[in-house]
């Protein structure tokens, strides 16, 4: 059952369209990635889901409520790209303040706060936030997003500007949250992180969704897996229709045949061997999310459905 539904969401600023026609659904417990280049409309989309920005058109339903409704805000944890914390407060005071604002009973709030800080391995909890390192501040911000025990978490660039150790810690922590049944909407520029933890992904460009689905589905839609067949002879001649290589090149006395599936590999092998040659090597080439991202970012912004 979808816990988050977005239908034809659009946001305009004057004559500029920041987001146009975004539609997707997110299942409970999913980690859903939103990626795209700067200015693609990711943050605007996430803020519309968080109830911070009012859509110009379209609808969003989060946990059964329209964004902005107090009932929805109680079930949401939002971590913005920056960590706008009250630096003059201690971490514990800061978290207790937000727990108070979310009507969390005092005892439950204290237990939850210390549990979150334990899991995030945050020391010096009574230190003023302004005197903490950026990584520590980010952990406080994540703990704040969890203070109301939300069903849906929106993480916008959660590891932005952090060292690799803290980054990995946060990525692992996000995975743990998903394992606990929380739904996470995750945006990051580091596509390796998105690739490693997201169940499904949308890629945005110029305010539109240009690709969507699981990583495999997106790969299939954008070239998918390629097989490079190296042989001593050219096997492209006489191969059956539908198995013709996508590309044939000569490298170091060998012929490289690029094909899209294993059936084509077998067809090439048969043709080469029929000509008296032999296949010397077969390599599997899988495009990374980054390669797909770069490809779709250069394309015109017509949505490429998976």
């Amino acid at each position, binding site marked *: 059952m979808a816990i988050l539904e977005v239908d034809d969401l659009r946001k305009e*600023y004057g004559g500029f369209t920041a987001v146009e026609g975004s539609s997707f659904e997110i299942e409970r417990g999913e980690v859903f990635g939103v990626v795209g280049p700067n200015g693609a409309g990711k943050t605007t989309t996430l*803020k519309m889901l*968080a*109830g*911070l*920005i*009012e859509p110009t058109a379209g609808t969003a339903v989060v946990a059964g409520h329209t964004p902005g409704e*107090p*009932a929805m*805000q*109680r079930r*949401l944890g*939002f971590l*913005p790209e*920056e960590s*706008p*914390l*009250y630096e*003059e*407060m201690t971490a514990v*005071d800061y978290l207790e*303040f*937000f727990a*108070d*604002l*979310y*009507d969390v009973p005092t005892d439950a709030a204290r237990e939850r706060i210390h549990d979150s800080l334990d899991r995030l391995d945050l020391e010096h909890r009574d230190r*003023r936030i302004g005197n903490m390192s950026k990584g520590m501040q980010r952990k406080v911000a994540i703990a*704040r997003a969890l203070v109301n025990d939300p069903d849906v978490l929106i993480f916008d660039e959660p590891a932005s500007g952090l060292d690799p150790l803290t980054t990995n810690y946060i990525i692992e922590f996000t995975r743990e949250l998903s394992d606990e049944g929380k739904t996470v909407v995750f945006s990051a520029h580091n596509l390796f992180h998105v690739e490693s933890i997201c169940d499904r992904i949308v890629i945005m460009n110029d305010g539109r969704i240009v690709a969507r689905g699981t990583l495999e589905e997106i790969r299939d839609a954008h070239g998918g897996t390629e097989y490079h067949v190296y042989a001593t002879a050219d096997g492209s001649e006489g191969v059956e229709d539908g198995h013709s290589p996508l590309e044939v090149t000569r490298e170091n006395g060998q012929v490289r045949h690029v094909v899209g599936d294993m059936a084509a590999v077998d067809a090439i092998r048969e043709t080469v061997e029929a000509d008296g040659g032999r296949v010397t090597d077969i390599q599997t080439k899988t495009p990374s999310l980054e390669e797909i991202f770069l490809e779709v970012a250069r394309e015109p912004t017509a949505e490429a459905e998976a």
Partner: protein
Amino acid sequence: MSGGRLRRIVASARRLARQCRDVVARTSRIARWEVSRSAGTVDRKTVLALVVMALAIGTAGVSVSDSGLGLEREMYVAGVDEESRYYDVAVESEQFRAVPLDDIEADGGGDSTAETATIRGDANVDVVVTRDGRVGHVGDNGAAAYDAFRSAVEDYNAELMDDEADQAAAYPVLVSLEYQERDPDGSTDSGADDGNDAGSGDGTGGSTDGDGSATGGGGSSGTGDGDGRMQVPNVGDGGTSTSAGTPGSIAPPFPFESLVLAFLFVVPMNFVIQAYGSTIMDERVKRRGELLLVSPASRYEIVGGKTLPYLLGLVGIVAAITYAIEGGPIAVAATLPIALVFLAATFAGAMLARSFKELTFVTVTISVVLTTYTFIPAIFTDVNPIALISPLTLVVMDLQDESVRLGEYLFSTAPFYLSAVVLFLLGIGVYREEDMFAQKPIPTKVIDAIASRIHSRWSVPLLSVLFIPFVFAGQLLAVALLFAVPETVAVPVIIIIAAAIEEVAKSIHVYAGFARSRFDATLKTGVVLGVLSGAGFFVGEKITHIVQFVGLPELTVGAAAFGPAPSVSSEPVLYLAVLLAPLVLHVLTAVCSAIGASSGRNGYAIGFLVATLVHAGYNLGVLALVA
């Protein structure tokens, strides 16, 4: 009523009560945490500075309250012997320092020790009481000193008579003084009896200034002829002269001490808004307000919670000052709307400013404008009803132990309360992610703030009504600033200013609606919105007729600003025409501006200009007709 309906009503009432309770709870939580958080931002040096400031204000207030300002203490020197019956007058008067006649040193010659002192030139005294009981004055300050000595003698005598057991003997004649408004031609009515007395004749109109008494030898001495209660000696060889008394010689119309004390109420506001403005700005500049916006608290609760500590702090300070200077509850009640406007204007300004530098400009502007607006009219507390445009006047009245009527309180404070509400609403309109953290030009944000309150066509007349307090305040301020200017200049200027202020109030939200695509930019829509705005404003403008209760239209500049007070005509058609003419005017001019606004910024500017000129022409015509 059926049982089911009753249950639904009860359930709705309970739900509403629960929602109200939740709102209050969240607002108070934010307020509590705001105090806790802000406490962490104040270092010891700041605390010390605040304590020193509070002590200084407190000391000044208590000092002024107890013993006046002391600016005139021992300002003059009176030459008088201990044996003289005037000696006690000189000693008890704060303004005088008594020196024996033997110690008088005359530069210009003369015999200061003679039985009849004759002094020419300068001396170390301003007033001399000779051994035979005559009083005279010497030197440049002599005339003023002599008047002061007269007053001191009267005060001394009054005090003696107050202490007299037989009051009938002490006051055989009852005298009432009533100040009359000065006519435009400058003539005055000084004093009027209440019908109980046997005649005025207290001699206060016959003071002596001695200006014309200086005679040769460079002497600047003068004498007065007295009023039957003072024997005025012929000091030196000057003659005597008399002149008509002024109200100032009877009692000061300028409530200086009360004004200074009232000013103490405004001083802390100027400091508190600095802290308040910084808090609001902090939320914006560092995007810290974003996380509050994503919480279950509404922006009204957030703003309420952040404002409440500062408002309560100001009320506490005002209450403490009131207690220290022995003011009454009316002083606190009159200061509350001033505090609200200070905070509301600061909040709206902090929402518009793009940096702390701009915020400084905003808060200084607010300080200057609001302090001027509240303080200057209060100077005329005892002179002119226009003083009531400032709630500070009520404070002055309270400190002078004058009673304040409910109508006066409402007249003075209602525009402040309404202005505060409108400013808070406009500020809250842009207290959202899209505006708070965006670096937009201030005019753009103003338009955004106004547009945020436009939800349908019916928002237009509502906003026209809500802007009435600003029109009222703006026009009253113009009247206050211009009523001392010659009418030949003041009246034309105020006619144009008043028209422009009203046209802004009728059109700015219509323009905002078009500029932010709240309405279709068509001619028809412009006409409809213009009609709605003009009609709404007409209704709101009727509120300004409250000025009749304090007689402002009797001032020519007041009439120029608000129009002449409507009079009931015996001719129904004429009466209807008089009543409906302003409606036609407001609709017509609002339509001009609205049609212009529908075609963009330049169109709006042209439409506004035409509307202002038409409006000013109408006002001029009405004035000419009435005159």
